């Protein structure tokens, strides 16, 4: 039996609660919280006056190296990085080797998450067999086995007919389809956002419109089918404007973004910096600002890490040959807080984008501060400074696009089911 834990004199924040006081964890659950609560004498006392206690972060989009890419990341190393980043629940992408298109693999990943003791792993199921974009996977059986939603990961579902079928069929199981919004024939061969920067560097461009065109198509298909579509890592103002109007029209359309798209722009690729090669590619400054605005006005439903582990051999190549993707578990909170500190996003809204809102999208009971709720918690000092350094990050994947970035906001501790798993 885990002893009780008492957080004393902290700011408790999340899911509509914002107060200074104490929070008691007993038997893995939040037993009580408030400005002054009863203090059992034998509880482990955590005093952190300037710290904020919020629900453990829920990362709705991360690639794990398993199965098939263990040289990049293992579930063990991802769990370490997640705990260090305050993340207690993570939805993992199915475009692995093999792809997660079989119920047994869903069960395996969920069990592997439980084995870590620190991280709940919620697998996405593949929309199509092998994520090849040809025929539907067994969406019903995958759902039954515990697939939290469906996506082909970093591959866009290219065929409009197949996307229509997927949205329509999945709606029968109440499941959401998560799209990588990029029209593949426009993006083919491209490695950076089309425009002056790509032209100067002699890199093939992907027009920003490749995102909006796919978003427009899929909004139309969501309307046609009544299915629920979610757009992952949205990065352009045009796409966000389309999503905003679709939401206003009452369609089942949602989206997330990731820290690179509101913190960096295309200039980060500088002189061929492959760690800043991402998919979708980093955009122009006006798009970055549009993402910030959409975070502030609620158009964006969640911030996900979009963690894509890569090793040095994947990245130490000429830019066009290097693999796209950045690690993001350890920096999810810090980069988000940077935009709280600069006044772009209110703190409470930022925490909700990392906790209760992705929980709602994934349909799970997590990400909230409530009596009786599971004590998945993150304690952080919002003002303490640190510097992101590739090579010194927790976990295996060191391919951060934020290398050298100074941040304010350090995770002091992470608790999973009431047990301290970091700090």
């Amino acid at each position, binding site marked *: 039996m885990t002893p009780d834990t008492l957080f004393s004199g902290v700011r408790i924040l999340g899911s509509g609660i914002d107060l200074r006081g104490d929070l008691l964890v007993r038997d893995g659950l939040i037993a009580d919280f408030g400005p002054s609560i009863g203090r059992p004498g034998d509880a482990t006392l955590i005093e952190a006056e300037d710290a904020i206690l919020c629900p453990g972060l829920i990362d709705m989009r991360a690639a794990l190296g398993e199965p098939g890419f263990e040289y990049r990341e293992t579930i063990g190393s991802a769990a370490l990085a997640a705990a260090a980043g305050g993340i207690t629940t993570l939805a993992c992408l199915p475009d692995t080797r093999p792809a997660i298109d079989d119920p047994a693999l869903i069960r395996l990943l969920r069990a592997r998450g439980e084995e870590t003791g620190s991280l709940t792993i919620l697998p996405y199921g593949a929309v199509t067999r092998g994520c090849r974009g040809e025929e539907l996977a067994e969406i019903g059986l995958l759902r039954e086995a515990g697939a939290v939603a469906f996506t082909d990961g970093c591959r866009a579902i290219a065929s409009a007919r197949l996307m229509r079928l997927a949205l329509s069929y999945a709606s029968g199981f109440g499941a959401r389809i998560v799209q990588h919004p990029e029209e593949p024939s426009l993006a083919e061969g491209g490695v950076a956002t089309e425009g002056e920067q790509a032209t100067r560097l*002699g890199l093939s461009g992907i027009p920003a419109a490749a995102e909006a065109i796919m978003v427009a198509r899929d909004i139309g298909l969501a309307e046609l089918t009544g299915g629920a579509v979610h757009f992952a890592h949205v990065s352009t103002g045009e796409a966000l404007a389309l999503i905003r109007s679709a939401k206003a029209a009452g369609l089942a359309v949602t989206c997330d973004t990731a820290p690179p798209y509101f913190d960096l722009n295309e200039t980060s690729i500088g002189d*061929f910096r492959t760690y800043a090669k991402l998919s979708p590619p980093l955009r122009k400054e006006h798009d970055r600002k549009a993402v910030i605005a959409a975070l502030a006005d609620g158009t964006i439903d969640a911030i996900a890490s979009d963690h894509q582990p890569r090793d040095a051999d994947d990245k130490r190549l*000429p830019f066009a040959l290097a693999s796209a993707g950045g690690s993001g578990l350890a920096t999810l909170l810090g980069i988000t807080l940077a935009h709280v500190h600069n006044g772009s996003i209110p703190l409470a809204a930022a925490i909700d984008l990392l906790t209760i809102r992705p929980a709602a999208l994934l349909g799970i009971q997590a990400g909230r501060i409530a009596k009786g709720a599971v004590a998945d918690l993150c304690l952080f000092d919002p003002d303490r400074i640190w510097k992101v350094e590739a090579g010194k990050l927790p976990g295996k994947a060191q391919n951060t696009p934020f290398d050298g970035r100074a941040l304010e906001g350090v995770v002091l501790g992470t608790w999973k089911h009431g047990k301290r798993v970091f700090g």
Partner: protein
Amino acid sequence: MFYRQKHLLAIEGLEPPAIGQLLDLADSYVLLNRSGKTQRDLLRGRTLINLFFEDSTRTRTSFELAGKRLGADVINMSVSTSSVSKGETLIDTAATLNAMHCDLLVVRHDQSGAPHLLAQIVDAAVINAGDGTHEHPTQALLDALTIKRRKGRIAGLIVAICGDIAHSRVARSNIHLLTTMGCQVRVVGPPTLMPAGIADLGVTVFHDMAAGLDGADVVMMLRLQRERMSKGQVPSAREYFRFYGLDAGKLAAAKPDAIVMHPGPMNRGVEIDSTVADDPIRSVIKEQVEMGVAVRMAVLDVLSRDHRRNDS
């Protein structure tokens, strides 16, 4: 001494005095080469490696000749004979070359940025001999030297660069060099071969040859690769020649004393007509080749100065 960089990776970012220094020095090498004198002691004991991951006859030969005229030991490595084809990475190749204590590394690669990656690892001074669709700095320098010797100046000239701008490293290096040195640069070609945001590099965009060549002092043609037709960016070679191929009729829009340039190798009848290419007065294509050796001698000279100073 205005050129202060260790490598020559790109023209972009070079200041006019650095470019001027390289051109003046190259000019003196033209005279030396023509006089038949040599300077075989300048790079004596230095090793120059020509590392070519892409086929090239004239650029590799030009660097080889430049190195030998200055007394360097020149080694040619091409991709077909090296272990790169066996799966060795660019990084491994670089480490191997480093162990051989090469002083000057000339690199051509089909990937933009490959020389930058090598420059991070090797001790040698790296010279970009063309990387993907990014830059080809020595080509721009030899073009500028050709222009300067023919026109007596560079600043104030109107230069029209014509053809496949999107896939041309020659175009990019020339745009950077010529705008830096005060030319009015125009780019002329079909919209499908015009890269996005090119006007932000300080050039004016034309899709019509007559308008683009109007009053030009220099007409620079680019090679059109057959691949552009197969990928559908241009419907056919004959259509391309009809609208964008340089013939006497289209050249008439330029100034009467305008010169015609081409980095080679030419596709006669696709981007340039033979009567123009071989015109003894207007075409300076052969002269460009001669300037190439002189420019590369100047680059090797300047990039090895620090080493030579340390040794003496």
